[in-house]
């Protein structure tokens, strides 16, 4: 029973990793760049939600929707103004650029909102439900349900909408997509905006658990483990990878005595390294195989 309880808690935190990893995967699939600032965008989402809901006193759902919209527009312009300029340069340049952007976002947040820890009230805070002796908090439930809704929305968007199909086409083959009349640059910026929006959702859902401060941007680094485990090119892979990382982290935390001290904090990174060494393709990789030497 304790095991199932741990797994449920793990799934909830894993969904957050999965959502952030989803942001990496969307951008990677389309532009083959990795956005190291994803965690910082998540942090911005949480802070904007705090401003709208906590300070301006908006209704939770309105604040939620408005935050996602603001961050999505922000993501669009991050690509259109900055990141687009270095397309085609070595991977190193993009890595450094997005790390730099992440620092700017974090610095901005701590200047504008300060370094205190904030929280805002959500309809889920402090409520729990019991089911066959399992205790599930509403916050965890909201994360799991929110992730499920978002995933199905994205699935339908990519399968049935015209823009979604255009996005898939652009990530398959940029030049061919361009010849078919798809505005590839615009589509890429749009993908950045979706990815930022997903990060914002993760940030808002996470806010009741970790509270809002600048250190939550570190989630982005653990989400790398989720993305790599899932195969870095696969959307379901990102979520499954995230959930596995979440569960592993919970289990490592509880059974720390049997392993070694402090294993919980680095379990995600250990999984990441092991995946890269043993099975760098990841669980769900489609065709995007990692180049081997």
């Amino acid at each position, binding site marked *: 029973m304790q095991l199932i309880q741990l797994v449920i808690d793990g799934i909830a935190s894993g969904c957050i990793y999965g959502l952030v990893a989803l942001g990496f995967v969307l951008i*990677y699939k389309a*532009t*083959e*760049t*990795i956005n190291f600032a994803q965690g910082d965008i998540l942090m911005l989402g949480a802070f904007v939600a705090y401003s709208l809901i906590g300070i301006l006193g908006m209704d939770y759902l309105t604040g939620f929707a408005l935050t996602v919209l603001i961050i999505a527009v922000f993501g669009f312009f991050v690509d259109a103004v*900055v990141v687009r*300029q*270095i*397309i*085609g*340069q*070595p*991977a*190193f*340049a993009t*890595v*450094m*650029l997005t*790390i*730099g*952007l*992440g*620092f*700017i*976002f*974090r*610095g*901005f*947040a*701590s*200047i504008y909102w300060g*370094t205190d820890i904030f929280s805002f009230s959500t309809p889920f805070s402090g409520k729990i439900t019991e089911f066959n002796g399992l205790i599930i908090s509403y916050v965890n439930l909201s994360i799991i349900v929110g992730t499920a809704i978002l995933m199905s929305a994205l699935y339908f968007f990519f399968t049935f909408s015209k823009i979604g199909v255009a996005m898939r086409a652009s990530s398959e083959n*940029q*030049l061919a997509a361009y010849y078919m009349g798809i505005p590839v640059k615009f589509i890429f910026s749009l993908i950045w905006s979706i990815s930022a929006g997903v990060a914002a959702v993760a940030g808002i859902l996470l806010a009741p658990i970790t509270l809002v401060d*600048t250190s939550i941007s570190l989630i982005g*680094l653990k989400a*790398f*483990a989720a993305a*790599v485990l899932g195969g*870095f090119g696969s959307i379901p892979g990102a979520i499954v990878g995230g959930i596995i990382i979440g569960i592993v982290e919970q289990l490592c935390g509880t059974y720390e005595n049997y392993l*070694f*001290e*402090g294993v919980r*904090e*680095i379990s995600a*990174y*250990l999984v*990441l*390294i092991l995946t*890269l*060494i043993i099975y*760098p393709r990841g669980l769900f990789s489609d*065709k*995007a*195989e*990692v*180049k*081997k*030497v």
Partner: protein
Amino acid sequence: MRFIFKTKYSQDINIAKHNGDRFWYSLLILVMVALPLVLDDFYLGEISYICILSIAGIGLMILSGYTGLASLGHAAFLGVGAYTHAFLLTNGIPFYASIPIVIIVSFLVGAVIGIPILRLTGMYLAIATLALGFIAEHVFIKWEHFTGGNRGLPVPQPEFLGMSFYDSVFFYYVCLVFLIAAMFAAINILRSPTGRAFVAIRDSEIAAQSLGVNLGLYKALSFAISGAFTGLAGALLAHYIGYLAPDIFNIFLSLTLLLLIVVGGMGSLHGTVFGAIFVGFLPQLIAICRDYLPSSIGSQPGLEPMLFGLILVFFILYEPLGIYGRWMKIKLFFELFPTYKRQTFKKQKVFTKSDRV
């Protein structure tokens, strides 16, 4: 404009290309040696720190700038060097014996880390090294027998050649000698077949492989050499700091090293020194910025990461060759005057290169 008339093949690999080089670099070394006559202890300390940063920068430059492998966890090597050195000194091993052991240990650590992850390229390598950096920081905290954990580890300051490391003039000379030695070692590695192989791997792995470069071996070697240089810098850093705590060797230090090589100029050893000077004086620069900004912004702790990010983004976007690249442009402008063309350094338009098979 100076034309070098080559009559021997060996001229191509000379360290100094012409007499002008010989003159200016000798003058530079003389000035550096004479500095303690002019400067007081504070500035000597700063310059010693810059020398240490330069050595670490050489390490990362060989890996990232010359072999093209990104490392986001290089502070781990600094930590390995620093802790090994402090541990050896504590156990009574003299300074002159400790330094070679530190270099060998960091070399081996680099090789051990390099071998499993050298199958990775580009972003995957960046992510893996980032994770390794975190794991290393954690090991420094938890391995208390060796590192003292969160309590920290005092670094003994032994006598060396009858002088004490507390003497800032002596410490300055130690750092300077190691920097010059490291610089010579790096120049010689880079003009040897090994260094040429590194550059070939950076420019095109497939081409390098076709010419018979053993990718796995040379990537691991690059990691190991880079680790050795950075470990040496770590040992000196241990003396500079005086008291080691695990949180010194965090991700921010790794990123500072990356900032150093990006600002200095990727793919040039001059760049490591320029970058080290820049990074060394960054705190002063930030302090100056604080004075000019309105106090509501200037007094914020968030200003530092923000400026850090802004500088990084600015250099990546507008001066990818760094300070050294800018210096080359200015030099060429005067050499070619009045026929200098901006287009000489223009970035070529490129399409996204795909890593996908």
